[in-house]
């Protein structure tokens, strides 16, 4: 197993000198505001606190983005508290055992959301080179959400790129063209086989406009933008879907069976309305920009979870070469929390009923597909430890092997990601005590039918 090469130290950097200076000024205020933890009510008979190194620490920015560039090089983006909270990119040529010196993406520090469903994204690719010439440097694209301080739910979708193999990054741009201090968050970055870049995010401009006119608006919306020049510029924002959930990540995946130039397929938690006007939080499934005006998006799940709440559970999506859609999502089915998986054909027709995955504590799925081979990963917390489990199917998701634990953490952890290197799946997972891990899901022999960029 690769040694954990970076650990995130929870407290922000703070010089002792400045701490001593403010100490006397603040001690009076301190007493009136945040009491020491041990001043809790009902603490009689207080035993030894549960072992938890992270106790009292703010939540660490554990969400890490990772992707391979097609040459076997792993690229990673993360928030670096040791660099003033800047985003940094590094890369590894030995499957995560060693990483290059990190390069700052944003020269000017800004808040970056990197926890739970909010993850900085990274993609990398080598440009085509004429035969016999040296391979050109990789292009690297990074996208993230920058939350606005003290404005709940507000943020901007930010983007930067490197055209020199990750040595330097362009000045970050804001991709949302509505710049009001409202929700533009939960971005997902995707790249088509033709090289076009897509950014989709949760956007509240319509909801805010409705509110100003005294009207109600169900949920939020998903907006997207497209770049046809390798990320030098993005086109105007367009709406993908109205009435989406406010707080769940969006899954994007290329559909190899779609015509050339098609936008990626999106799976997201939608807010449908039932006959009584109550919110039903099922998932919508449609290509970006592929929902006709005034129609409800096609359903990717049909559990009818009726709730006005923020689940913070986004879905996973992977599409096989023949257009088979593999979906995984979390919902309450009746009263039972359920992580589920289902395969749909290229027209969206179910190939089998949804199946329950993992135990009642299973959540935050990830999917990877190569032909008929499908991998599904998720995490479960059992009261002591968090484990990432994986299941494998060799027949397009009809039958699955027994779930096997891939990794474990005794502390705070990121949601698991499955990423591919030329068709081979890896778990990318970060956790506070153990650090970053990249774990192969397949044994080292070459895959039978490597088909990474054929589509």
């Amino acid at each position, binding site marked *: 197993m690769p040694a954990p090469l970076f650990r995130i130290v929870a407290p922000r950097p703070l010089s002792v000198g400045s701490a001593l200076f403010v100490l006397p000024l603040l001690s009076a205020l301190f007493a009136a*505001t945040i009491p020491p933890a041990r001043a809790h009510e009902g603490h009689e008979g207080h035993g030894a606190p549960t072992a938890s190194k992270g*106790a009292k620490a703010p939540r660490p920015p554990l969400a890490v983005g990772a992707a391979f560039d097609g040459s076997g090089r792993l690229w990673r983006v993360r928030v670096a508290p040791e660099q003033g909270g800047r985003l940094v990119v590094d890369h590894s040529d030995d499957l995560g055992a060693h990483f290059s010196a990190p390069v700052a993406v944003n020269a000017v520090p800004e808040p970056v959301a990197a926890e739970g469903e909010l993850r900085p994204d990274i993609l990398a690719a080598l440009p085509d080179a004429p035969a016999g010439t040296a391979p050109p440097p990789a292009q690297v694209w990074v996208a993230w959400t920058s939350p606005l301080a003290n404005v709940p739910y507000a943020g901007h979708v930010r983007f930067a790129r490197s055209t020199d193999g990750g040595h330097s990054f362009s000045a970050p741009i804001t991709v949302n063209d509505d710049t009001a201090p409202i929700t533009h968050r939960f971005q997902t970055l995707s790249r088509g086989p033709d090289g076009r870049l897509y950014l989709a995010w949760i956007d509240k401009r319509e909801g805010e406009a409705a509110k100003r006119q005294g009207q109600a608006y169900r949920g939020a919306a998903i907006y997207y933008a497209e770049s046809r020049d390798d990320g030098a510029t993005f086109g105007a924002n367009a709406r993908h879907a109205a009435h989406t959930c406010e707080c769940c990540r969006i899954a994007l995946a290329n559909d190899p069976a779609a015509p050339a130039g098609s936008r990626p397929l999106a799976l997201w938690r939608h807010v449908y309305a039932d006959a009584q006007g109550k919110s039903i939080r099922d998932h919508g499934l449609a290509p970006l920009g592929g929902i006709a005006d005034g129609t409800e998006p096609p359903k990717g799940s049909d559990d009818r979870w009726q709730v006005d709440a*923020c689940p913070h559970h986004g879905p996973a999506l992977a599409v096989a070469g023949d257009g088979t859609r593999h979906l995984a999502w979390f919902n309450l089915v009746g009263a039972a929390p359920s992580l589920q998986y289902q395969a749909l054909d290229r027209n969206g027709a179910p190939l089998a009923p949804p199946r329950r995955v993992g135990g009642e504590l299973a959540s935050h799925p990830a999917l990877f597909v190569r032909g008929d081979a499908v991998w599904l990963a998720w995490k479960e917390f059992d009261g002591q430890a968090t484990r990432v489990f994986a299941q494998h199917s060799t027949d397009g998701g009809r039958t699955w092997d027994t779930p096997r634990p891939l990794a474990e953490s005794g502390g705070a952890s990121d949601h698991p990601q499955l990423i591919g290197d030329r068709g081979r799946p890896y778990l990318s997972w970060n956790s506070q005590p153990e650090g970053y891990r990249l774990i192969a899901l397949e044994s080292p022999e070459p895959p039978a039918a490597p088909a990474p960029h054929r589509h």
Partner: protein
Amino acid sequence: MTRLLARFAALLLLGAALPALAGALTPLQPGDYARIKSARSGKPFIVTLWGLDCPYCKGNLAMLGAAAKANRQLDLVVIATDTPDDAAALAPLLRQAGLGERRTWVFGDAAPERLRFEIDRQWHGEMPRTYLFDADHQATAVSGSLAAEDFHLWLRRNGLEAPRAVRP
């Protein structure tokens, strides 16, 4: 030692960020939830979980805050699932909900799943989440905004319906 000092100073700075907050925001640590419950043995109470990242929490918190303000017998435990670092952002929302004078809680552990598990292993983090505890500590769990009629039923069942006290 240096790190300890820095941590302590960070905590102090945190305090300085909210001089207007009269109530106290206490970090919830593993084991605290069980203590909150045992301190209320034989008594009805309500636990509500909310967060900055939850548009539906505002209305729910306002309804419960107003009810608790109007009825001093209503024992309301308010827990934010954010972090002690978010105190400055939480404070105005607590004030708006009429909870500025009260002790409330905020998740104090770096691993939120640990606290969620202690509170209710059937709860997967969706918010708002409210537990209506009867005196015998039978709890009704509600995801999403608490319906006014369910709230009234619980108040009546536990003899807490004061005249003109609750107007959600």
